[in-house]
């Protein structure tokens, strides 16, 4: 019984070669001899995808693939921190799980602080910086986690860590961000704003897909009337066109008769408690009939012109969303009711 692998002459009846351990019963063994093949699509993808992505794909594939039982030099999945992968969703959790509590706490508290700061400054430039820092901390925690895989070389660890970090950012934060953006949106007044708003304020509002759901009494963000007219700027006659988005309270619904006189509001002949956000900018007297399909909103936060019967009739299609609060700057925080 000569071994096919090392040509050692074994005793008859041996199942494995006593020198190299190769099977001596290969002739009768039921072994698949057709190699695995890549599909045409997979080959095309490999051909066109960058080399970096191919390396990452194959390495991740090898991690998730179970090793052959008898192969001495195949990677052992038990040595990989598969238990840590899910925990890496929260920075520091996986580190704490591995016994590095201090590092885990550092990652977690710095990340949480940045989450709170970015939530407080949501929609502002400083908020964007906080979001970036928060992502960096999370990314860093993942790199730190994979850097501990001492069994692998630096390049493999870097590649896996970077790939996992990118996947996390793309999958988790992108989904959260896009979902949040659809639920809660922000507007920042860059240059012009009238009281109670100031330049630089950030308004958080909830986009309303159905403008018909807006009722009198609610504070809404709306697209103001476009004003076009002649003006003189630095001695030049110019055609001036003003439009923008403003915030104010819905005073009355379509078909109502609205009367504002001496600081008192009358809707359909009855007194109303509703007031615009900046009553000081209201004229002495304003009387209007709200056209069908429109809402009565006095644009008192619009610094360009005073409310009148024309500018106060806002078509429903111009409603953008319900105002929730002014969150930035933090010392001017205001829940709008």
């Amino acid at each position, binding site marked *: 019984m000569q071994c096919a692998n090392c040509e050692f002459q074994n005793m008859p009846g041996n199942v494995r070669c006593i020198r190299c351990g*190769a099977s001596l019963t290969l002739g009768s063994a039921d072994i698949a001899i057709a*190699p695995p093949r890549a599909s045409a699509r997979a080959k095309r993808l490999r051909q066109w995808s960058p080399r970096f992505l191919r390396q990452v794909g194959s390495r991740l594939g090898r991690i998730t693939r179970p090793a052959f039982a008898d192969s001495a030099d195949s990677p052992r999945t038990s040595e990989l921190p598969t238990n840590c992968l899910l925990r890496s969703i929260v920075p520091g959790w996986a580190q704490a799980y591995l016994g590095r509590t201090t590092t885990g706490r550092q990652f977690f508290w710095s990340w949480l602080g940045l989450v709170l700061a970015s939530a407080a400054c949501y929609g502002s430039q400083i908020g964007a910086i906080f979001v970036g820092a928060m992502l960096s901390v999370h990314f860093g925690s993942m790199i730190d986690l994979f850097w501990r895989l001492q069994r692998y070389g630096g390049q493999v660890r870097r590649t896996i860590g970077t790939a996992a970090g990118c996947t996390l950012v793309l999958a988790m934060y992108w989904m959260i961000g896009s979902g949040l953006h659809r639920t809660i949106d922000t507007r920042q007044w860059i240059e012009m704003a009238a009281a109670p708003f100031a330049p630089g304020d950030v308004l958080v509002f909830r986009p309303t897909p159905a403008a018909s759901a807006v009722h009198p009494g609610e504070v809404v963000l709306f697209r103001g009337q476009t004003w076009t007219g002649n003006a003189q700027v630095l001695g030049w006659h110019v055609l001036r066109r003003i439009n923008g988005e403003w915030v104010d309270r819905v005073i009355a619904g379509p078909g109502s008769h609205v009367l504002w006189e001496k600081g008192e509001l009358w809707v359909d002949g009855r007194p109303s408690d509703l007031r615009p956000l900046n009553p000081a900018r209201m004229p002495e007297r304003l009387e209007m009939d709200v056209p069908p399909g429109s809402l009565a909103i006095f644009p008192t936060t619009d610094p360009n012109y005073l409310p009148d019967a024309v500018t106060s009739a806002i078509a429903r299609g111009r409603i953008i969303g319900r105002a929730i609060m002014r969150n930035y700057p933090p010392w001017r925080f205001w829940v709008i009711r």
Partner: protein
Amino acid sequence: MARFEHLEFGPDANDRDQPKLKPEDDERTAMADADDCRRRGQYESALRFYSRALEYDKSLVLSWVGQVQMLVQLGEAPEAELWARKALELFPGNGELLAARAQALCRVGDAAQAGAVCDGAMAAAGRSAFRWQARGEWMLACRQKMDEHCFAKAQELDRDWLVALESALIYLHYHFPSRAVVRARLATELAPNQYYPWFVRGKAEAELGLRQPATDSFDHCLQLCPRHVEAEEQKQLLNAGWSAGGMWRACRNVFRRRR
């Protein structure tokens, strides 16, 4: 008697005159066919013949190695690596299989593990040109400078033109056309009547930007094998004017390091 049950005797006198099928002839034929296909660059057919040889005899290590090598040549390195691991289960520590796995790992991009496997292949009993080729490929993958020594050592161990040709193919895979041309020229010098070395030489010359020598090599290839579609295509690409593909290749070559 039980003690003589395992004794082996020659063929029975009655059977001597009858023609009989020799299974070893079949596996040898399959291996020879696989080698022929490999020398013609028909790696898909070669892979089938290696599998056929294994159907006759699963203990043929060279067939397993050949399968892995063909998978690598066909651009299916992850599958080749998987298959090499499976073969290593059957033949643990086999130097050729370890070298084949190292080659597959290099193509996959896992140079660190490839190095370890390659060391194992060199430490295993016996010597072969393929082990030195795998060593050279690993050095290329790691951007080390001793690759030429390894390929020269492989050529020294085996003067077969296939060694030079496959060395050229390795160089081409890692975009070292200048070194690939040297190996491909050696292959064509050793086997001037074989068309595949001329084709590989033409490819290396074309990648190096040597249009006229590349056209000559493809012409030579087409002279030996008039129906060689790939050589025809490569020749047309060389002679084509401005095209999107040509522009893309030109841009790619600008940003590619020349070696």
